[in-house]
């Protein structure tokens, strides 16, 4: 086993004690990226020049004692966040050559905290997918087994963090797109409360479900990333004004909600590590409270109705008129829309646009969209009720470990079921994270923890406790050296 990989805090200590310079650290990361990333296909573009320039500035800031919480820390952004002057493609043909003229608030916040962006990571097209196979840039491979998917949609971010090619990555989570790949790749994936992180500049998939968040090697790293990312933003009407995220190192016993039925149907390979994690948490003084989430079973269907409805209109702006792909096909304006969109979007995106268009149509709106919104409220109420008697709810992150590439090609709804443990959380806007809790056949297993709105500190404290007791998060995949 390798020596534990340095945490953000340890890297910061090395930088401030001048053990290593930011330029050296950045170069070291680029070296690692060059030697391994092609096996994973986890990056879309690398920003070596601007990263080294930022590293030089970081060194000068450190020298003058002007460093900030993440000064010199190399990170990457999921290709869904706009970065001024850089390509932001959402891994779609539609935005293949789109260069963002402004930066997302999250990108700015991390830049202001001193983080160095080394590039952008691969993802499912417009964040629609759970395997990273819908990317126009080709699938990402799971660093634990190259024949398996990394999960999605933040698959590139999860693989890059798992392979230690960056210290941390941003991600977005609409139905599990941070937690599911984090679980598949054995890293920590954190999705804060809806409204905690600004969505401005994060290309929209489903506005009411889209959560920016991060993927890291540890819960503590996630806390450091979130502290830098979060904050009220006047450019996002759904952004919340809340106390900053904090956490203390003192452990206290918590009441952990345990939805027994969710764990009951899991395959043994996953159930066993989760069971073990539960014992670890119990042994640490936490109490387990059995809870029920009565509307869990209908969450996936309701989620896909709402997510597709919102996506169908959020993606209407890609019409080939002002930017993005425009077909060479000559015809009238209607033809131009149809042709540009047919060429620009991939299968899964089209499927969701069509589904969304259908459920919003006259005659279907009430039976689909309205009903789904009602279910959404019921699901949220289930959680809020459970939180009357618990501090944090435990759940599996995924129903399986990382599956093989092309395993889900036949029926898209098989893929949608991948999200069954994660979508209800997005529908409720609650903060949640997935932490590695073991392996099955050499593939990581994740445990999901869910907290009440704006109680990210609960997750951070419990997660840090758990990771002090375990070393699953320190396991590193062995990639063949090339």
């Amino acid at each position, binding site marked *: 086993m390798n020596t534990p990989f340095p945490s953000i805090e340890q890297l910061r200590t090395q930088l401030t004690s001048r053990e290593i310079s930011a330029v050296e650290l950045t170069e070291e990361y680029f070296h690692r990226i060059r030697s391994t990333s092609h096996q994973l296909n986890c990056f879309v573009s690398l920003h070596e020049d601007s990263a080294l320039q930022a590293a030089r500035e970081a060194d000068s800031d450190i020298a003058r004692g002007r460093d900030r919480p993440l000064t010199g820390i190399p990170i990457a952004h999921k290709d869904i966040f706009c970065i001024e002057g850089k390509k932001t493609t959402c891994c779609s043909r539609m935005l293949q050559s789109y260069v963002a003229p402004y930066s997302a608030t999250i990108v700015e916040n991390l830049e202001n905290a001193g983080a160095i962006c080394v590039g952008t990571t691969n993802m499912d097209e417009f964040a629609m997918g759970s395997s990273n196979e819908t990317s126009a840039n080709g699938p990402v491979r799971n660093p634990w087994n190259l024949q398996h998917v990394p999960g999605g949609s933040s698959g590139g971010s999860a693989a890059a963090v798992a392979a230690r090619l960056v210290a941390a990555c941003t991600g977005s989570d609409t139905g599990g797109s941070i937690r599911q790949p984090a679980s598949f790749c054995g890293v920590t994936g954190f999705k804060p409360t809806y409204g905690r992180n600004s969505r401005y500049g994060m290309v929209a998939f489903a*506005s009411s479900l889209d959560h920016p968040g991060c993927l890291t090697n540890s819960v503590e790293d996630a806390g450091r990333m979130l502290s830098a990312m979060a904050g009220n933003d006047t450019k996002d009407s759904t952004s919340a004004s809340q106390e900053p995220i904090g956490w203390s190192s003192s452990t206290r016993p918590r009441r952990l909600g345990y939805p027994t039925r969710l764990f009951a149907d899991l395959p043994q390979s996953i159930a066993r590590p989760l069971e073990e994690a539960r014992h670890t948490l119990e042994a640490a003084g936490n109490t387990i409270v059995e809870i029920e989430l009565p509307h869990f079973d209908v969450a996936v269907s309701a989620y896909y109705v709402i997510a597709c409805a919102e996506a169908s209109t959020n993606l209407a702006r890609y019409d080939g008129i002002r930017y993005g792909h425009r077909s060479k096909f000559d015809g009238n304006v209607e033809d131009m829309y149809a042709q540009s969109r047919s060429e620009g979007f991939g299968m899964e995106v089209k499927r969701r646009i069509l589904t969304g268009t259908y459920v919003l*149509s006259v005659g279907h709106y009430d039976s689909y969209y309205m009903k789904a919104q009602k279910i959404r409220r019921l699901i949220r109420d289930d959680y809020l009720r459970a939180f009357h008697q618990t501090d944090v709810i435990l759940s599996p992150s995924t129903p399986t470990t990382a599956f093989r590439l092309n395993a889900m090609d036949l029926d898209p709804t098989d893929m949608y079921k991948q999200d069954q443990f994660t979508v209800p959380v997005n529908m409720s806007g609650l903060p949640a994270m997935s932490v590695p809790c073991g392996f099955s056949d050499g593939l990581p297993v994740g445990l999901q923890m869910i907290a009440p709105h704006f109680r990210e500190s609960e997750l951070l404290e419990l997660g840090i406790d758990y990771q002090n007791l375990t070393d699953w998060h320190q396991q590193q995949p062995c990639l063949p050296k090339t």
Partner: protein
Amino acid sequence: MPAKNVNSSLWEPVIGLEVHVQLNTNSKIFSSAPVTVSVEPNRAANAVDLALPGTLPVLNKKVVEKAILFGMATAGRIASRCRFDRKNYFYPDLPKGYQITQLTEPIIEGGTLEVRVDDGSIRQVELVRAHLEEDAGKSIHGKYAGKTGIDLNRAGTPLLEVVTAPQLNTPDEASACFRTLHRLVTWLDICDGNLNEGSMRCDANISVRRHGETQLGERTEIKNLNSFRFVERALKHEIDRQISILETGGEIVRETRLYDVERDETRSMRGKELAHDYRYFPDPDLLPVAITQEMIRAARSAMPELPEARCSRYIDELGLPAETAHRLTQEKAFSDYFESAFAIAGNAKLTANWVLGNVAATLNRNEISIENLQLSGPQLGEIVKNIVDGIVSDASAKQVFEHVLATKSNVADAIGQQRESLMSDERDLKALVQRVLDGNPIQVEEYRKGKKKILGYLVGQVMSAAKGKIDPKKVNQALTEILASD
């Protein structure tokens, strides 16, 4: 083409209006880009207006304030919570592929508008609703060979769409209703009222039915009428067209029509007739808007005296004739001008005559608005006060008025100068009077025969010969003396 001899007396037109009122905010409804018409294409459109990936709308609070003001002025119900919906359709000048509007929870519901029709009758027109929405950009056809230009400067301009009940029965009423709305929104200062620049655009829904019929007939919609006259003319034509179709056993097709100003007719808008399913649903990027008591209080204290109230006050308290009061309250700035003049002059009738006479004539002649007149309300009040006090004649006052306008001097100085230039030399005056009498032998004869009233005419002749630069009392005196002495 409509038959000219339709028997319109058998038919009752039913008209409802939808008026898009462009709110005069500095920035757009959901972005910080400026609202302006006078810049190059796409210069007043930012990332949000262009619907760049990742951008989000943020509501401009000013539009809410202005909508509340409108709701209050029309006694509508102001929602305690309103919401925005997406109206989805593809159009090249609609950047997001949807328009943000209010379908299910508009900011204002109900209300009435008191409309004074040209024949003097008053109609209380019910309002169905008023909701907030964003304007689209413009497609520019014909300017670029083989291409359509897209200008998104207008995209995101705040609109308040006011919908009346189908309660108007003539083109005159419809036009008067549009005019009343225009007066109200400019009075409230929520719209600049500039019809030529599209600040108010009217769509008219129109159907006809036989008198006594209670069911509404099939309707058509005439889009984008941007003047009072066009509303009237387009409706006249459409009513005739519908009646002639019905009288010849035809059926009205529900459709959208355009009024062709050049050919003075309405025409079907082809290609727009596809039955649209706009797939409305609540915009998840915008939270519902809570209208707080504080916002209501703020609107109440910002509410000006409304035109109808002011008009009644002019009649009841100032004793002005109804028509005068009505004319004075067509435009707030004009009415405010009257108020400030009256406050100093103290004589409402005389002040009103001056405002509706000399002041209005000057505005017309120079094609300026009252705000740009080089003579303030209080200055006019000072001039009128001098007439009231017998210090200057009407004619001299007119001279003073023109002098102040031309030189921007103050009124007291102008009056001083005026009086100095009055003919003070007795001999000059007498010589002038004699000349006028010599030129009017018949009138002099009549006067001598006892028709004393003719003196007024002679005074006028002298005054005009002196170009007004003379004190009428002295003229009167001189005339009487000379006529008596002969």
